[in-house]
């Protein structure tokens, strides 16, 4: 699964994207799994309410299932316009 990070999430995690091997069923499960791996993930995902997630380039929810998803992206609330 391709996992992408943008803005300060990218800066905290230190890479713009990476391939993650996971059996996580939902986005929340994936986050829990990443947080146990390294401190930088724990720092980036400390406050989920400050984050948004997109599954295959569509805004989604943290309890959404990951079955069939190829690309997960984490980022802060958008500031376009």
């Amino acid at each position: 699964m391709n996992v992408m990070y943008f803005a300060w999430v990218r800066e905290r995690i230190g890479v713009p994207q990476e391939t993650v091997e996971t059996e996580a069923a939902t986005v929340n499960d994936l986050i829990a799994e990443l947080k146990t791996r390294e401190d930088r993930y724990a720092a980036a995902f400390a406050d989920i309410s400050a984050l948004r997630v997109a599954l295959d380039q569509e805004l989604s929810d943290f309890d959404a299932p990951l079955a069939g998803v190829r690309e997960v992206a984490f980022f802060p609330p958008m500031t376009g316009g």
Partner: protein
Amino acid sequence: MQVRVQSEPFDAGAELNGFAQGRTDIGAVVSFTGVVRDTDGTLQEMLIEHYPGMTTSAITKIVEEAVSRWTLADALVIHRHGPLKPGEPIMMVATAAAHRAAAFAAADFLMDYLKSRAPFWKKEITDQGADWVAAKDEDEDALNRW
């Protein structure tokens, strides 16, 4: 309907003149131009990051929603990414309709949705350092107007 995401500058005036040109079924054209603001005179640069795989499709969906809600004759969105200087145009929206109420409402709607639903993030580099621009609650609340 046109959606362009680019790092290059654009000429807002030329875009406005080219937009819906020669059409005689429209009575109203509204444009919005977003400009890099530097209220305190401390901004050196604004860096706009985006999510290339998602940006164009996310904007296109927002524009399609606007076109169908207000029966627009045409709509245009241009949004830049990369480094920008104070006073430079960041992005532009234009809408064309038979009557002014639809053109105004659609442009207003597009801006509200682009602000909170198009995958862009702004970072301000000032004399004091670099900071990501935080999303405002009022921008999220603005979506409830529609």
